[in-house]
């Protein structure tokens, strides 16, 4: 059984067919790259699967269960986490508190209001581990607002990772980061994610990165599969590759 399966998933914005009857199947343990030109609907697909946007029609199955109508929080609880293309963290909390909150939430401890957060040693240690995995240990006590763009991006990913999800969507984790830091960030993410056996779907424009890290590539674009195969932009991005084992059908 696929870990996640979408069936004829649809979400339009007026005339824009952002998510157009997408049938996507993700197997447990895969590291998938989701590619496609700007505006292809990659972010929208993640938004629909993570319940940021409502589904118009179609179905989402997670471990065989229909989760199409569940809320955001329920999907997080079920084990679906995501990061954001545009950094989305808690600006006035410290880097440490950002990550600690995700861990508290995962452990069901956010309802504890008579215990001091920083005295929970299990959570504190884990948060510090996550921070050093992502190379953020030195910025532990800085507010997220004061981090560099690259660090904020990493923190965004760390927040999703700290939830220890079964399925993790990373929406352009290296966008806005210098090419020099890009490889380092991707190495970090790949090692952390593979180390935990997390199934990951990563949106990425840099094809070097895509080919280096992913098991499978999913292409999203406007049009029928034939049009997409002949699409210049898609062809360009995939130049030199025959490894396009799956197409997100959009017709």
């Amino acid at each position, binding site marked *: 059984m696929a870990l996640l399966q979408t069936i004829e998933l649809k979400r339009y914005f007026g005339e824009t067919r952002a998510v157009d009857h997408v049938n996507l199947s993700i197997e447990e343990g895969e590291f998938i790259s989701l590619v496609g030109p700007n505006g292809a609907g990659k972010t929208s697909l993640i938004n629909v699967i993570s319940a940021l946007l409502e589904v118009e029609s179609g179905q989402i199955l997670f471990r065989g269960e229909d989760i199409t109508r569940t809320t955001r929080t329920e999907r*997080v609880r079920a084990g679906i986490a995501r990061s954001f293309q545009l950094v989305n963290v808690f600006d006035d909390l410290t880097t440490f508190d950002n990550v600690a909150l995700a861990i508290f939430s995962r452990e069901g401890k956010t309802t*504890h209001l008579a215990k001091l957060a*920083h005295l929970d040693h299990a959570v504190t240690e884990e948060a510090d581990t996550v921070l050093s995995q992502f190379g953020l240990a030195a910025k532990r006590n800085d507010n997220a607002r004061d981090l560099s763009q690259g660090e904020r991006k990493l923190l965004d990913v760390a927040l999703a990772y700290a939830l220890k999800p079964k399925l993790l969507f990373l929406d352009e984790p290296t966008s806005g980061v210098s090419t020099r830091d890009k490889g380092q960030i991707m190495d970090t993410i790949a090692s952390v994610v593979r180390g935990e056996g997390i199934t990951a779907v990563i949106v990425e424009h840099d094809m070097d990165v895509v080919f280096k890290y992913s098991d499978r590539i999913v292409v999203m674009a406007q049009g029928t599969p034939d049009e997409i195969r002949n699409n210049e932009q898609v062809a360009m991005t995939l130049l030199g590759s025959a490894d396009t084992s799956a197409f997100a059908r959009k017709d």
Partner: protein
Amino acid sequence: MSQISRSAPSIPMLLAIGIPIIIALGFLPRFIGLYQTELLIYGFTFAIAALGFNLLLGYTGLLSFGHSAYFGMGAYTVAFIVRDLHVQSMELCILGGVLASLVISAIFGYVCVRHTRIFFSILALALSQVLWSLAFKFFWITGGTDGIRVPRNRITLVGGLFDFTGSGAYQRFVYSYYYYVLVIFLIAVVIMWIIVHSPFGKALQAIRDNEVRAGFVGVPVQRFRWLAFVISGTFTGLAGALWVPLNGLTTPDILYWPFSGEIVFMTVLGGFRNFAGPIIGAISFNYLKVYAVAGSQYWQLVLGSVLVVLVMLMPTGIVGTLGRIARMLRRG
């Protein structure tokens, strides 16, 4: 913007600062006389109200312009208990006042947290005015604009250990009530401090910073806002309950929306981005208002100007500004 807590708070350091302050507060009435002692009690009660209010504004990011409702609910409940049930024990009165404000803030909060920003503020305000108009119109129950008297001699403290009849009752009342309120105030501060430093408190701050992401790390945003609202209203209700015997009278004025504005004022005066801000702000506001009223017929002009200047020039309030000055001194 200055920050609520950058790194984990150090409890020994807090005790090192807190214990001398508590001891000083314990001896203070010996030196400052009856009237000043009374003013300080008022300051403590408002500080509890502002502390509760700031759980919403400073920590959850919701500006309530309706907290008069919970303060008034606490106050009126105590007045009813004393007048109609002839209960003398202040502890029972407080229990009643706290429960009543808990119930009303649970109901009002359930409605209000469906919105944020300005809509939340207006909704909170509209609901608080329902209570005000009822207190105003049902005069055969509430005494209308005359309010309800709560004579001190009808009240006993600590299970009847202290009563206030006979000669020198007023003086005895002020001095014993000072310690009574001080203890409750300190307990309230400790409880609130624990709440804002708990995992729950962190979740509230996350909601304040970014409610969308809070949802995506699994925080049930609306339910937590509601919980924060209830805790906040209950604290403010406790403040109202403690305020009544001191004032000796409760009137619809404390349910009217400008009083909500005063609670906001206190909090911003101290600085809503700091735990201690509302405490300092409430005590300062009380002095400011008392002396403005005593000094001039046009005290509102004075207070209003202070508020305008504050917002324009010192948006982080007294504590935030002092913190900034301290940091500047340390650096240079």
